[in-house]
């Protein structure tokens, strides 16, 4: 829209026609007090704090809901405006407790700040104040609703951003109450943002309650590493401990929001289960030792077992996907330097010949602009909350969304179609779609597709991809162990090319992108994770691996690692029984926010961070441990003084995922398929140790879902154990499929 000029407090200002006045004053640095206005939420204009004087208007006008027009003359601080502001402030305070010293929001309260500038010191209100009784709304958010000023930011957050209206206004007039609509309280995956948007102390962080005042803490920027977004956060620390996490604005990454997992996982840092000192196993007994001794022991073990015997190819390195870019790099460098290419971070895949290799070629912000989405094998809301948020935005602006899943999930936007099919049918379904798309452009039909008869469902899916101008196909985590995973990736790649769609591969999460970029995968002569364990190596270096959660077949992995002649060096942040069982050395390493490093998000953006706090006294950042170990092994090229020097050695060539070109396998099979997934708050060790997160409904997710027919086939009933997980019978699961979500160690094969 065209630029126009308006006059604010006597100064000419140019702005866009139709903009709200408050956007202009904000940009110009003119202060207009406000409570209900929030730049990422719809306008409510209910607090009336932002009233200004517009010449010609009989009444004061709210800056947040007054669109500007040419020649408008505005006063933001004349007597009329001051009178309105004072009036509104007085009304806000009559029923608000005036006990800031005991309020948890004290010091960071918008009401307190504005009252200092615009309030009166004496209240003429002598009636009784309103008191609102608080209910328990869940483990994450503490309420003190007597302090609520009814600005409805939290309500609008739920309705507009969260996609589920958890908070609402009930009653009217003075009895208007902001409270959860549902008896189960607040349970959504983005709920903590309501704490950030609440201008007062009505909604505060429960785990942080009454801990500290904001001014007592240091604020350090950091990056959350639980998923593929790499949300920007501020860690607030006190005496070397992370006390609270809040969102940091970054429009191209997480806008102003963060997931609850990013916000509350820090609690795990202080968990009693942290591994706090280096230990070595001598004659089957664990002994706490100094770092020097432990590293010496580790170095000796490696030298004796493999290096001096010329068996470097009997050394392997395995890492979890939460490692930093620098940690991945140093560990693979160390291995390659001593002559081993047995390197892998893909621990949860049954058949590494059959993987989901597919490029991601769309930006996070770009997701908002697509007009069609096809999601395959994902519950994005819980797996990748901020990516899902972008998809929701796309949906709200009209994008159609089709889903092919093995189970019906609770999406927070409208789906065009939700196709629930057995894992074994997905490849076939995509083959049908591909055939139709090829037919539409009169292209040659490959042999493998020649006999297929396309179903109506496939036709609809194909038509929408063909009709769309800007579509994206998303491949999710549930495809990871699909027996036809690589064929599925091939088919999608082909469909995307034929329809000019972009693709988004969210099948591997956390910092997997960094694992790929640093080539933390086997080289030509190397073994992959499964092969290492199957062959049985003589020495291993494991980086933050928790076998019961990370391996696709924990029992087998533990057995292989526990072999008598295998020397195992484990670097972990948390104690773990299985790790203690198979390791010979345990080295305590820094967890999230205790180390510097980098995360690579889904769009390939490298985001580096410094340590917000130092690790507990005898705990070291893994990059340093690896550097020292390399030094002890007298390897060249490890002269790093800090992690930034490591980062700069890694060249970001934007790792390419080469799609496999094996023969397509699209045969529909009848066997039962198990899809195993760590529940959303069990994805990594830190989250698993965050008690408030664990207490939420999402944190408690632990079930093997299947339909009646499948249960009958497997001879189990509701609440029986299946692979150690309670059975939940639901008809929303595809036939012949078990969908396991677990937050506890797994027994048996997956």
């Amino acid at each position, binding site marked *: 829209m065209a630029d126009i000029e308006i006059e604010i407090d006597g100064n000419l200002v140019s702005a866009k026609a139709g903009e709200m006045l408050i956007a202009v004053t904000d940009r110009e640095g003119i202060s207009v007090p406000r409570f209900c206005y929030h730049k990422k939420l719809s*306008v*409510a*204009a*209910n*607090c*009336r*704090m932002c*009233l200004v004087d517009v010449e010609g208007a*009989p*009444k*004061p006008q*709210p800056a947040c*809901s*007054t*669109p500007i027009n040419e020649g408008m003359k505005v006063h933001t601080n004349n007597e009329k405006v001051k009178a*309105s502001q004072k*009036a*509104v402030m*007085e*009304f*806000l305070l*009559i*029923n608000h407790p005036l006990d800031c010293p005991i309020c948890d929001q004290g010091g960071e309260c918008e009401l307190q700040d504005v009252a200092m500038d615009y309030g009166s010191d004496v209240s*003429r*209100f002598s*009636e009784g104040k309103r008191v609102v009784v608080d209910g328990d709304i869940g483990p994450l958010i503490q309420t003190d609703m007597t302090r609520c*000023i*009814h600005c*409805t930011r939290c309500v609008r957050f739920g309705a507009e951003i969260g996609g589920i209206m958890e908070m609402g*206004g009930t*009653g*009217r*007039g*003075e*009895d*208007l109450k902001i409270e959860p609509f549902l008896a189960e309280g607040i349970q959504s995956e983005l709920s903590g943002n309501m704490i950030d948007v609440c201008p007062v102390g009505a909604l505060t962080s429960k785990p942080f309650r009454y801990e500290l005042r904001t001014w007592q803490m240091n604020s350090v920027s950091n990056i959350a590493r639980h998923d593929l977004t790499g949300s920007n956060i501020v860690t607030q620390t006190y005496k070397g401990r992370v006390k609270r996490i809040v969102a940091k604005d970054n429009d191209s990454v997480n806008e102003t929001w963060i997931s609850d997992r990013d916000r509350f996982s820090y609690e795990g840092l202080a968990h009693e289960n942290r591994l706090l000192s280096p230990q070595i196993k001598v004659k089957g007994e664990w002994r706490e030792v100094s770092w020097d001794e432990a590293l010496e022991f580790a170095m000796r073990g490696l030298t004796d077992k493999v290096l001096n015997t010329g068996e470097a190819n009997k050394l392997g390195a395995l890492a979890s996907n939460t490692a930093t870019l620098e940690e991945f790099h140093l560990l693979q460098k160390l291995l390659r330097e001593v002559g081993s290419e047995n390197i892998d971070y893909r621990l949860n895949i049954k058949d590494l010949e059959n993987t989901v290799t597919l490029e991601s070629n769309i930006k996070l912000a770009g997701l908002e602009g697509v007009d069609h989405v096809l999601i395959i094998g994902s519950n994005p809301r819980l797996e990748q909350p901020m990516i899902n948020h972008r998809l929701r935005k796309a949906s709200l602006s009209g994008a159609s969304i089709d889903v092919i899943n093995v189970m019906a999930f609770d999406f927070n936007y409208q789906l065009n179609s939700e196709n629930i099919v057995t894992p074994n049918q997905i490849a076939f379904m995509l083959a049908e779609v591909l055939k139709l798309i090829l037919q539409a452009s009169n292209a040659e039909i490959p042999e493998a597709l020649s006999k297929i008869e396309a179903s109506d469902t496939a036709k609809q899916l194909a038509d929408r991809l063909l009709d769309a101008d800007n579509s994206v196909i998303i491949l999710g985590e549930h495809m990871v162990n699909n027996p036809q995973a690589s064929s599925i990736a091939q088919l999608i790649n082909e469909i995307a090319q034929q329809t000019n769609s972009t693709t988004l591969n969210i099948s591997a999460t956390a910092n997997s992108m960094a694992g790929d970029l640093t080539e933390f995968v086997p080289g030509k002569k190397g073994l992959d994770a499964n092969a290492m364990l199957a062959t049985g190596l003589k020495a291993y270096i494991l980086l933050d691996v928790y076998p019961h959660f990370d391996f696709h077949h924990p029992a087998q992995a533990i057995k292989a690692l526990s072999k008598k002649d295998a020397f195992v060096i484990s670097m972990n942040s948390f104690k773990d029984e299985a790790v203690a069982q198979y390791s010979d050395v345990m080295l305590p390493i820094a967890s999230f926010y205790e180390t510097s490093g980098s995360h690579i998000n889904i769009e390939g953006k490298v985001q580096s961070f410094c340590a917000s706090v130092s690790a507990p006294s005898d705990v070291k950042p893994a990059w340093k441990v690896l550097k020292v170990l390399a030094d002890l092994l007298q390897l060249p090229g490890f002269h790093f003084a800090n992690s930034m020097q490591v980062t700069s050695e890694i060249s970001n060539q934007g790792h390419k995922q080469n799609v496999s070109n094996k023969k397509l396998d699209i045969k529909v099979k009848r066997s039962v398929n198990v899809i195993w997934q760590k529940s959303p708050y069990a994805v990594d060790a830190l989250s698993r140790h965050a008690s408030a997160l664990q207490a939420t409904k999402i944190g408690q997710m632990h079930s093997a879902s299947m339909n009646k027919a499948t249960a009958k086939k497997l001879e189990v009933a509701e609440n029986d154990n299946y692979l150690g997980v309670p059975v939940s019978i639901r008809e929303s699961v595809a036939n012949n499929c078990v969908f396991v979500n677990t937050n506890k160690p797994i027994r048996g094969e997956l």
Partner: protein
Amino acid sequence: MNEVCFKNLDKKKCYSLKVYEQSGGYSIWRKILKGELTPEEIIDELKASGLRGRGGAGFPTGLKWSFMPRNASMQKYVVCNSDEGEPGTCKDRDILRYNPHAVIEGMAIGGFVMNASVGYNYIRGEFMEPFKRFEGALKEVYKAGLLGKNIGASGVSFDLHTHLGAGAYICGEETALLESIEGKKGQPRFKPPFPANVGLFGQPTTINNTESFASVPEILSQGGQWFADIGVENSGGCKLFSVTGHVQKPSNFEVPMGIPFKDLLEMAGGIKKGRKLKAVIPGGSSTPVLTAEVAMEMTMDYDGIEKAGSMLGAGSVIVMDDSTCMVATLTRLAHFYYDESCGQCTPCREGTGWLYRVLKRIMDGDGKADDIDLLLGVSDKIMGNTICALGDAAAMPVESFLRNFRPEFEYYIKHGKSMVKG
């Protein structure tokens, strides 16, 4: 008297389609269906008639209808406001009961003029009988083939739905009403955007009061000038006044605009024997109260009432004799607004409760000398600072009661009891 909305009041079954048609009803609508009237002609007649919105604000109806983007391609709506919740008013109820077809025809005409093929009549929740009458009338017209899609192959479509409210005064505020029809909590929207641009379900919408719509067919039958001539300058036509309170025969009267208040009072049977007129609220509880002396000199039209210091509002004349305690009356009114505030905006949510509590305290004998200033101060701070006019409506009586009857309040505060022995 009784020339427009109450034209057929004395006839048997005056609410039936038959009676309505016998007296010329639906002739305008039929003309429209035959293509004999254009929207421009209708708007011109309405402008000439001087009809002003009967819901309270008195905005010229013809002008309002001309604001609708009639040529825009999206769905548009006409909505009738039959929520009638203002204390003192009961005219729309009787229009729905005795002349529902005039409302239907008026809305259909509005739909045609504004190119809106769908209408809603939002009827107050407690109005069960009027609601049934209106529904009955709707059935009749649908059966007669006068509503629906492409009516009689005319190319004109109009469908009309009724929507029953749930007893909230605030849903009479036009944008809260729209929210309520949409199935949401009845809370006013901030403006701009105005309903003519973003109204029901986000589409252009015009909202008029029941009486406004019901007046339209007769105006078009008899001509705008005919209507204008019934009334006085700036207040065309006749108007329904609901006269209630301390009168012998409380009732609705359809009389020419500009009639002297004292004549209207007489029509209502005057004040009870042995009592004296003390005060009059001329336009419904949201309008300022007047003293007897001022009221007796006043004429009942927009300018006349404004000159007297109040507003015509919805034409709800509340008459009070000398047995009335003004402190108790204001307390009752303050309680009403306190109870009916939707609570979304700060000054009204917090201020109405404050006003009521101070008044209640005075009534309880705990008044303080500076309470009067406090009340004036609080009402002044609500005034003009809210999203909708309910805030102003709550503030206005306070100011006028205190201005006109201050000694009564002072007496009550000082003595802890009313000056009026009633």
